[in-house]
């Protein structure tokens, strides 16, 4: 049974931050949730989708983040509490809607947007601090610092939204969303609301400047509420030598830094959970007690610069401060923060030395292990269809010989930019950008451009943002090949169903949007292939790039190996025949291990031959087709 729907108030549970947010929404009585998956946000709506039927709520995976928020907003307009959750890039996608919704206001049902940022880009192409959307759109912001707070704030966010008829932003980061910790469960509501649109209401930002002014007045009201919020607290001496001002993930690190350096009597921590609009009076009260302030937050100096702006106004009355943080170089203004960085920042600001461990041991540990620990490059899983597609693309472009290249997109296949995909991807930006860029390259012929261009995108990315680019290419008669890597999964984010999988977020059957027919309806040439048939795929890629003019589509279709492994047993039992594999003497330059690079194939150095690692191999059998000696044997599993 999912812990999320456990009807046991007071029960102490280990929850992922994202699960805690989902639980908070359930405790608030959320009835509608919509999102497009993206790490680190995916498990919020994913968790709700698992309990949706039992809890009588509606949950969907939407085609993209903008549509998700629009769908959720409609439920709010009809009086239901509703939410959407997205990663930082999703906030960008939805931003046009957000920056109109702020002016139109929301309905009588509270509307909450969870923005989950990925500092250090652990599973993103970019690094970004989405808190700025709050300032940009004059929208209230909440930042949980603990797992308990993730739940409690999610619940409160709905109440706040309803009290001011505004979208509320709950901002998390990877180390909250994807970490796990203790959460005491609260009560689940018993009542459900009926949805009805009050036709006397309009949600149109007419007279935008006046609404903008009204929005500022709303924020003033929120600021008053935030002054006494229980999400802000102070620990430390009455008059600290230095005050740490922190939010979100910075709270745990700040606490650990003070303890580690044994500065409890000299340093205070003001933890702010309501970071836009800032509780100015509360900040002024605490800052009046010290002359030195250290800001701890992830990623950009959002809190830091906003507090400095306030401080500039206070200084005639309260005086001035020495500020430490991202501006002073004490805290990194990029990447993640962590306990070491914050301990060191505090150590420097307080001039109190810190050594993480005995210096000799540290030196010895690093020296002894230095030459023994090889890097692990990211790669495609054993049996991944993307490896086969990139192999075919690489060979086809080489045979074509005109300097063709691939514009990339967002998904597992992004790994194709590195050795695993034979360095085929040359560009990667936003969802759908690969095809958008290809439409432009395909117009450059009058300027002497004569290289074939292929865009690649996954099936989920196709629906999300590549369709407008494809249509742009058709309408403007661009010249490129679009390769849809259809693995029937949103694999990178956790195998969520999408418009092409025939299943809804809650496991009900759904119509399949047929990529092939959709493309064909645009009048373009459409081919399909099975990437595991390397020859056929290579031939088709070559034929498509050879055809000049117009948009051509190749759908390379094969189920994700991880999904397949869960559903069925391996197709083949694969082994290397040691008699046939002649190793270095072959002349193949170890094509299987050195060039093809499937992790299921290893090089037995002692014997000088290739070998299958039976722990890793998933039995796809593709490597049998690349061995010039036919030394890799695949036998069908019965």
């Amino acid at each position, binding site marked *: 049974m999912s812990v999320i729907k456990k009807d046991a108030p007071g029960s102490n549970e280990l929850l992922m931050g994202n699960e805690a947010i989902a639980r908070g929404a359930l405790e608030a009585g959320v009835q509608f949730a919509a999102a497009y998956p993206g790490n680190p946000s995916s498990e919020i709506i994913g968790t709700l989708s698992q309990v949706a039927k039992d809890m009588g709520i509606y949950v969907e995976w939407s085609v993209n983040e903008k549509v998700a928020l629009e769908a959720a907003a409609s439920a709010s307009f009809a009086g239901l509490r509703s939410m959407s959750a997205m990663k930082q890039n999703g906030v960008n996608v939805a931003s046009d809607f957000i920056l109109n919704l702020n002016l139109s206001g929301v309905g009588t049902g509270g509307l909450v947007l969870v923005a989950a940022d990925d500092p250090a880009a652990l599973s993103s192409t970019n690094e970004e601090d989405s808190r700025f959307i709050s300032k940009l759109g004059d929208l209230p912001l909440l930042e949980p610092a603990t797992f308990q707070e993730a739940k409690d704030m999610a619940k409160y966010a709905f109440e706040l939204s309803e009290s001011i008829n505004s979208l509320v932003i709950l901002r998390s980061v990877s180390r909250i969303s994807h970490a796990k910790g*203790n959460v005491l469960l609260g009560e689940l509501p018993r009542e459900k609301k009926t949805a009805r649109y009050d036709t006397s209401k309009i949600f149109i930002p007419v007279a935008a400047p006046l609404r903008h002014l009204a929005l500022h007045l709303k924020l003033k009201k929120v600021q008053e509420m935030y002054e006494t919020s229980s999400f802000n607290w102070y620990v430390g001496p009455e008059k600290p030598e230095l005050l740490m001002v922190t939010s979100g993930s910075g709270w745990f690190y700040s606490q650990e830094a003070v303890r580690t350096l044994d500065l409890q009597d000299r340093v205070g921590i003001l933890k702010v959970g309501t970071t836009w609009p800032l509780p100015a009076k509360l900040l002024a009260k605490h800052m009046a007690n010290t002359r030195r302030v250290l800001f701890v937050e992830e990623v950009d100096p959002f809190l830091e610069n906003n507090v400095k702006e306030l401080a500039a106004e206070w200084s005639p009355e309260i005086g001035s401060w020495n500020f430490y943080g991202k501006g002073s170089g004490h805290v990194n203004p990029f990447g993640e923060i962590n306990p070491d960085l914050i301990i060191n920042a505090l150590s420097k600001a307080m001039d109190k030395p810190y050594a993480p461990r005995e210096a000799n041991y540290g030196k010895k540990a690093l020296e002894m292990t230095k030459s023994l620990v090889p890097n*692990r490059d990211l790669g495609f899983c054993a049996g991944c269809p993307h490896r086969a597609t990139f192999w075919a693309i690489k060979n086809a472009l080489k045979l074509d010989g005109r300097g063709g290249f691939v514009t990339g997109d967002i998904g597992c296949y992004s790994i194709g930019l590195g050795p695993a995909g034979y360095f085929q991807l040359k560009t990667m930006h936003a969802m759908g950008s690969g095809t958008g860029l290809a439409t432009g390259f395909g117009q450059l012929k009058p300027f002497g451009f004569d290289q074939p261009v292929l865009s690649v995108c996954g099936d989920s990315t196709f629906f999300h943002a590549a369709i407008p680019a494809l249509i742009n290419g058709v309408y403007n008669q661009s010249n490129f090949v679009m390769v849809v890597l259809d693995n029937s999964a949103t694999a990178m984010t956790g195998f969520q169903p999408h418009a092409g999988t025939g299943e809804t977020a809650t496991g009900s059957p759904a119509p399949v949007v047929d990529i092939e027919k959709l493309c064909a309806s645009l009048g373009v040439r459409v081919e399909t292939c099975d990437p595991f048939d390397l020859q056929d795929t290579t031939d088709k890629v070559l034929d498509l790039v050879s055809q000049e003019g117009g948009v051509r589509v190749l759908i390379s279709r094969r189920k994700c190996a991880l999904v397949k492994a869960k559903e069925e047993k391996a197709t083949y039992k694969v082994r290397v025949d040691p008699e046939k594999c002649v190793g270095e003497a072959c002349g193949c330059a170890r094509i299987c291990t050195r060039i093809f690079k499937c992790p299921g194939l290893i090089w037995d150095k002692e014997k000088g031959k290739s070998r299958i690692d039976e722990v890793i191999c998933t039995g796809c059998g593709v490597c049998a087709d690349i061995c010039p000696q036919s030394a890799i044997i695949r036998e069908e599993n019965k």
Partner: protein
Amino acid sequence: MNLTKDPLNLIIAGVGGQGNVMASQLVGRALVRENYYVTIGDTYGASQRGGAVMSHLRISRDSQFSPLIPEGQADIIVALEPVEALRVIARYGNPSTSAVINSRPIYPTAVTVGDAEYPSLDKIRATINELARKSWFVDATEIALSLGSPIFTNIIMVGALAGTGLLPLGRRSFEDVIQESFPGAHLEVNLKAFAQGMDLVKA
């Protein structure tokens, strides 16, 4: 049972796909049932595709800690893969660190390609023995294969961790969460995997 240190810091390391998230979740849930504060920081995202992954567990009686262990502060390291034990002890180890290590390598592509060397198990063992207070090398993958699939490796390693007695948990606490986590047909084999893992270290 009491913590030998507060917070007690445990790292479960491995390669994406080996199931370190499941292992950390089992240990974490067993501890929360005994009313400990537990914070887990797992590696998510792109590294799950063949990269080096870690789960940090911070265990405390009195407060919630951050999901990241500071440099040099690991008390226990569980490595699902031998080179990963080295990677982790290099940054997080100290003279009191204990380590439980699965001896079966997963070769990085850099090694299969020929750009990097994978150290011999003897070399790995000698290095760990020099850096750790106490260590156990176990053949978890081989036992997993004998139970029918390499996917049991993580549960066997949780069993091995239980066998060390370094966590304030009895056998029953682990078995209870395994019972909760693997309903139906998968329960028996997982309990067996856990028990065999425990025997590896007790023996």
